[in-house]
C-alpha cells in the first residue's frame, strides 16, 4: 500500500492511494470524517440575551464555529481523568460579553486557553443594535464527527478510482470527444486523440467521450474507452482549519490500526488462541 501526495498543505491534501481495496479506501474516508476528534462548543450558558435571535439559535451558531484543536493537550471526556465532569484537560471555556451597537463576531469569544481560539476571527454571530446585550459562557469539548457534524475535522473528503483512458487504432481524430469532455482532458495530437499532459487524474469517468465517439458513426464499439483502476484511488481531503490535513490523515490511520488490533485481540480470545 502506498500513498503519493499530489499536493499537501494545512487546509487541503490530494493524494493517490495505490494497492488498497475499495473497502480500505472507504474505511480511511469514514475514519477521517467521523473518528478524528476536534473541539467544538457543546454547552452554552446564557446569562443575558436581548438580541433578535433566540437563545437556541445563538447556541447552534456558536457550536458550528471551528476551533483550533491541539490534540496533545485535550482528551475526550470519557477518557479524561476527571471522569467527564469537565476539567482543563477535556474542556475549554469561553466568555462573551458584548453590548450593542456592534456585530458580535467569533473574536469576541474570549478563550480561557489561547491555543484553543476560534480558527477565524470574523465569523458573525449576531448583529446587535443600541441597547441590546449578550452575555454568554460556553464550553467546548472534544468529540468525533460521528456524534455530531460540528466535530467533523473535514469538509470535502472523498475518493474516486484512478481513471484509465485507452484510445484504439480505430480513432479517426474527429475531435467529437474532445469537444464533449466537460473537463477538457482530451486533445487531438497528430492522427489520434490523446490525454492532455497531467490531466488524467481530473477525469470524472463520466463517459461522455464514449457516447460522443459512438455518435460520430464509428460503429458498434467506441474507439475511446474509459475504465478505472480497481486498486488505485484519488483522495481529496479538505480541513475546516481545526486540524491540519496531515494530522487528520495520521489520526484516521492510527484509529484504523487500533480498531484492527482490537478485532484481532477479540478474535484471539474467542478462538482461545493465546498468540497475543
Amino acid at each position, binding site marked *: 500500500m502506498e500513498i503519493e501526495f499530489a499536493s499537501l498543505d494545512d487546509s487541503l491534501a490530494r493524494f493517490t492511494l495505490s494497492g488498497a481495496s475499495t473497502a480500505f479506501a472507504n474505511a480511511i474516508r469514514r475514519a477521517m470524517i467521523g473518528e478524528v476528534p476536534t473541539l467544538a462548543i*457543546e*454547552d*452554552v450558558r446564557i446569562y*443575558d440575551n*436581548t438580541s433578535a435571535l433566540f437563545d*437556541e439559535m445563538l*447556541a*447552534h451558531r456558536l*457550536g458550528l464555529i471551528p476551533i483550533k484543536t491541539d490534540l496533545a493537550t485535550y482528551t475526550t471526556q470519557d477518557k479524561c481523568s476527571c471522569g467527564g465532569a469537565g476539567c482543563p484537560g477535556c474542556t475549554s471555556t469561553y466568555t462573551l460579553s458584548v453590548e450593542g451597537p456592534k456585530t458580535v463576531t467569533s473574536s469576541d469569544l474570549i478563550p480561557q486557553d489561547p491555543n484553543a481560539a476560534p480558527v477565524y476571527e470574523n465569523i458573525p454571530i449576531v448583529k446587535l443594535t443600541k441597547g441590546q446585550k449578550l452575555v454568554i459562557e460556553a464550553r467546548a469539548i472534544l468529540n468525533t464527527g460521528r456524534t455530531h457534524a460540528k466535530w467533523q475535522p473535514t469538509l470535502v473528503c472523498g475518493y474516486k478510482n484512478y481513471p484509465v483512458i485507452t484510445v484504439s487504432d480505430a480513432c479517426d481524430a474527429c475531435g467529437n470527444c474532445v469537444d464533449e469532455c466537460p473537463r477538457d482532458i482530451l486533445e487531438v495530437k497528430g492522427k489520434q486523440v490523446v490525454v492532455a499532459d497531467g490531466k488524467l487524474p481530473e477525469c470524472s469517468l463520466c463517459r461522455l467521450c464514449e457516447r460522443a465517439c459512438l455518435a460520430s458513426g464509428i460503429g458498434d464499439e467506441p474507439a475511446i474507452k474509459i475504465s478505472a483502476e480497481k486498486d488505485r484511488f484519488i483522495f481529496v481531503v479538505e480541513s475546516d482549519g481545526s486540524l491540519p490535513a496531515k494530522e487528520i490523515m495520521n489520526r484516521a490511520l492510527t484509529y484504523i490500526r487500533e480498531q484492527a488490533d482490537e478485532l484481532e485481540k477479540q478474535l484471539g480470545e474467542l478462538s482461545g488462541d493465546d498468540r497475543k
Partner: protein
Amino acid sequence: MASTYKCARCKQKVEIDVNVRCPYCGHRILFKERGAAIKELKAR
C-alpha cells in the same frame, strides 16, 4: 405568580390579571420579559 410583561407601545411594565391590555395606554400587544434565570443549552 404572575410574570411581568412589557407594553409594546409605551414600554412600561405591566401585570396581567384579567385583561390582556396595558393599563397605561390601552395597547393590547405585550412582550413577556426575559426571566433572570441562567439558561443552559446544548449547542446542537
